Structure formats: structure tokens, C-alpha cells
């Protein structure tokens, strides 16, 4: 696959960003960009890039504060995302009642606007006491291999 890879992260405490950096390092031989959701312009979504979205959960299944502006922009600007492909990795903590729902808000919205999710939906559970980094890196490799 020759498309540029955009790793889009939504974070609250920096963990998603931390993992995104490791994901980028893993595939450094390709054209990769790591972008904070708070800095991303929804008009920039393009079928020429492949989006690897990594997003955490805040509180009881909510988006992290880093993901809120993106959801708001997608909702208000309503871009046509037909032809755009993305993969999804969600961070969560099973000690909370609503496990790992944060990323699903973005996933649902992207799908509504016509984007297509490919590859497995990656998940990491912080309650294991491990960091999401290696799970996210392994998932990145698996997803790219499957394309």
C-alpha cells in the first residue's frame, strides 16, 4: 500500500499520544505523520491517506478531551468521507463500567459520514497495568499487513 499513513490520536493523559509515537517509529520506513485530533482539520480527510486512529476513553465511556473538538467538527461540518479508509484502536480500562467506549464515538461518526473501517478493531485494557504501546504497535503491523 502506497498511501501516506496518518496516525490520528485522541488523548486525555498522553497515553494515546505516547502509543502513537511508538506506532510511527515502528513504520518509519513509510510516509507517516502523527497528528493530534485537536489539531486536525476535518476538511483534510482524503482517500489518498490511510488513517490509523488511536483514541482513549474518559470517565464513563466518554471521548477524551483531545477527541471532543474532532467529533464536534465532524458533526457540524459534515464532510463527505466516502472513499476514506481508516483503522481503529481503542484504549480503555475494564475497571470502569463502560469499557473502552471512547473511540467508538469517533468510529461511529466516521462511518456515518461514509468512511470505511478496515482491519480489526484494536483494543487495550489499562486494567492489566500494561501500557497500550506494544499492543498498538503489534496491531499496526497486523493491519498494514492485511491491506
Amino acid at each position, binding site marked *: 500500500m502506497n498511501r501516506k499513513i496518518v496516525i490520528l490520536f485522541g488523548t486525555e*493523559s*498522553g497515553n494515546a499520544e*505516547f502509543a502513537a509515537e511508538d506506532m510511527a517509529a515502528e513504520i518509519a520506513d513509510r510516509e507517516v505523520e502523527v497528528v493530534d485530533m485537536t489539531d486536525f482539520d476535518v476538511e483534510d480527510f482524503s482517500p489518498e491517506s490511510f488513517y490509523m486512529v488511536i483514541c482513549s476513553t474518559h*470517565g*464513563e465511556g466518554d471521548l477524551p478531551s483531545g477527541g471532543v473538538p474532532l467529533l464536534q467538527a465532524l458533526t457540524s461540518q459534515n464532510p463527505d468521507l466516502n472513499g476514506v479508509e481508516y483503522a481503529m484502536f481503542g484504549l480503555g480500562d475494564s*475497571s*470502569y463500567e463502560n469499557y473502552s467506549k471512547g473511540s467508538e464515538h469517533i468510529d461511529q461518526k466516521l462511518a456515518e459520514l461514509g468512511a470505511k473501517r478496515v482491519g480489526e478493531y484494536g483494543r487495550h485494557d*489499562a486494567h492489566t*497495568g500494561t501500557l497500550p*504501546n506494544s499492543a498498538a504497535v503489534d496491531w499496526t503491523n497486523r493491519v498494514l499487513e492485511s491491506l
Partner: protein
Amino acid sequence: MFSDYSPSFAIVGSGPSGCYTAQFLRRAFPDSLIKMFDRLPVPFGLLRYGVAPDHVGTKAISSQFERLFERDGVKFEGGIEIGVSTSLEELRQEFDVVVLAIGLSQDRPLSIPGWALPGVYGSGQITRLFNGHPDEDLECVSVGDRLVIVGNGNVAIDLARLSLLGSEKLVEFGVEAEVSNTLSSQDLRQVHLVGRSLVGAAKFDVAMINELAKLHDVRFRSDAVEPINENPEAHKRYEAISKLVRESNLEANRVVNFHFGWTPSLIGGDGDVEFIDFASQDGLEKLTIATQTIFSAIGFVEHEDSVVRRESLMTDETDLTTGFLSDGLYCVGWFRRGPQGTIPANRSDAKLVSDQIIMDLKTKASKRSGRTNE
């Protein structure tokens, strides 16, 4: 970022707000000297000594911060205390920018008669004990079969949960056996969480209340009244408490009682704590709870012995909304904005202050180059 300009930074305090500041500054200044100082020999402040030991997901954030030292060239020097090992003046001379991320380490005192009776402890002290802080001594602490926790924010809920989790579980989370046996003994039968806020305005996060449901050997009760016509958050809090109570184990022989809308007025006892009185919001009713142990969890303030006082560092140019104290001196985190907000809030705070630092340095740099172009 700006060529040939690598200002040097000193960050005093290596808790989350200090570490996030280091992250943001390092990104903007890849080649700068960034040095973090801490009073303690090890970094991470409240992440290490304030986050509850069973909140492993939160504790894991330290790995992000470890990268600062391991890979990003940020220096750390522990055992450095302003007023003891160095002075603020010395730091300001040695570094272009000094950022104070020293937090608020003293428990807000109860300030009611009897507050100093043996048996009254600050939440900071108890949390530090759970986390093995070097300055805390278990010898001064004992917990009876009843515990009253004054406050109903997240810290208060943490203490209730940890006190009831049981020694065995706590040891699994790394708490020292002696500490667990003292602070989370099976002898503890009754916990009262008493806050001056009504349930809708209580400062706990709903997730913290839901988490209490995992205490299967505990029955939950509350005097909460459903808020009327309030914001959705207020209703969510009421729902969380109600659900906890509704699904309570009625056979349990340990009880947690939530009391909302009560302000402490007096602690009494002959030598040791025996009871604590509270007054209702309208002042007409009194609540008396017999207890041997009281934890106060009503916030944090600057340490009374602290050499570094925010107020004494403020000048006419100070703007606390950006963290700017005076030329080359900034504040971040709880030290800047007060003892509210958990780790994510401190990340946002660090971003805000770092942005200001970067902007101020840019202004300085362009003024400097403006002069040389004349």
C-alpha cells in the same frame, strides 16, 4: 524552533504537571537543557504518592514520563529543595526559564475545635502512607472500627475504598503489609463519608462511585435527595449514588454511609477523638457521629513551612491565567490554579503554560534580533 536559540529550563517539581511541561517544552526545544528538580530522591510526585495503589492504569502513565529521562535528554536531580539545597534566585540566574510545579502538599486544615486531637488525620498523610512515602510514619496512626471521612471528592472516595479493600488485596497492589493491616483491617465496620455539598454538587467523579460496587462485603446507604431542575451532571451523581445503594448487599456486615450537605463544626473526645458534630446547610440540624478515627479530605493548600509562596512571587505583571509570574518565572499545575483536577487537567494546564512560555521566548528572541538588525 527558532534557530540558534536553545534557552535553558529548570522545572521545580517532577509530578504530572512538571513532567507534562517538560514534554511540551522538549517538543518545542529539542536541543535545550531541561532539568527537573524534586525535593524527593525519586520523581513523579503525586503520580507516585497520591494516586491510589489500586489504580494501576493511572500509575502506568509514569512510563510516558520515564521516556523524558531515558530518551528525550531531560535531566533529573532529586533531593533538591528550594530554601535548603538551593535558592530560587540561584535557579533564575542559572536557567533562562524557571517553572514552579511544586503542587500543594499540605492538607487543608479542618479548623474546628478538636481538629488536633489524636485520631484526626489528613488525607494527604494517609494516601502517602498507602503509597510508601519516605516521610510518613505509621507509628502515629491507628484506625478503629469506625471511620469518618470529611469530604466527598475523589480523594475521600479513594480513602473509603482503600480502607475497605482489605489488607490482602492491598498487598497485591504493592502496599506494605504493616500499612495495609493498620489502614484496611477487617475490624473496620462503619465508614461515614460526610460532605458539605449536596449530592448534585459533590466533587466526586461518577466512575469513582461505580467503582465502589466491587466491594461486595459492604452495604451502602445515603441520605441523598434527588436534585430538582439541576444540570445533567447533578442528576448523574445522584443516580450513581442511588444505584450503588439500590444494588447494595443487604447481608453485609460492613456499612458505608454517605451524608450530603453537612459541615463539620466540632470534634470532641477526652484525650482521643470520640465523636464529630456536623451542622446542616441551613444550620438548623445537627449530626453527631461517634468515631475513633477521622480523615479530612477537604483539599490541599501550600505547606505552612514552604519557602516558595505563590503570593510572594506575584508582581504587577503576574497573570495566573497563563502561569506567568514574572520575567522568566512561571507556575503550573495545582500551584498555579489550586487543588482541583486530576492528571488530565494538569496536562491541559501544562500545555497552556508551555504555550505561554514559548510565546514569551519568541517575543524576546525577535526583540533581540530586531535590535541587532538596526
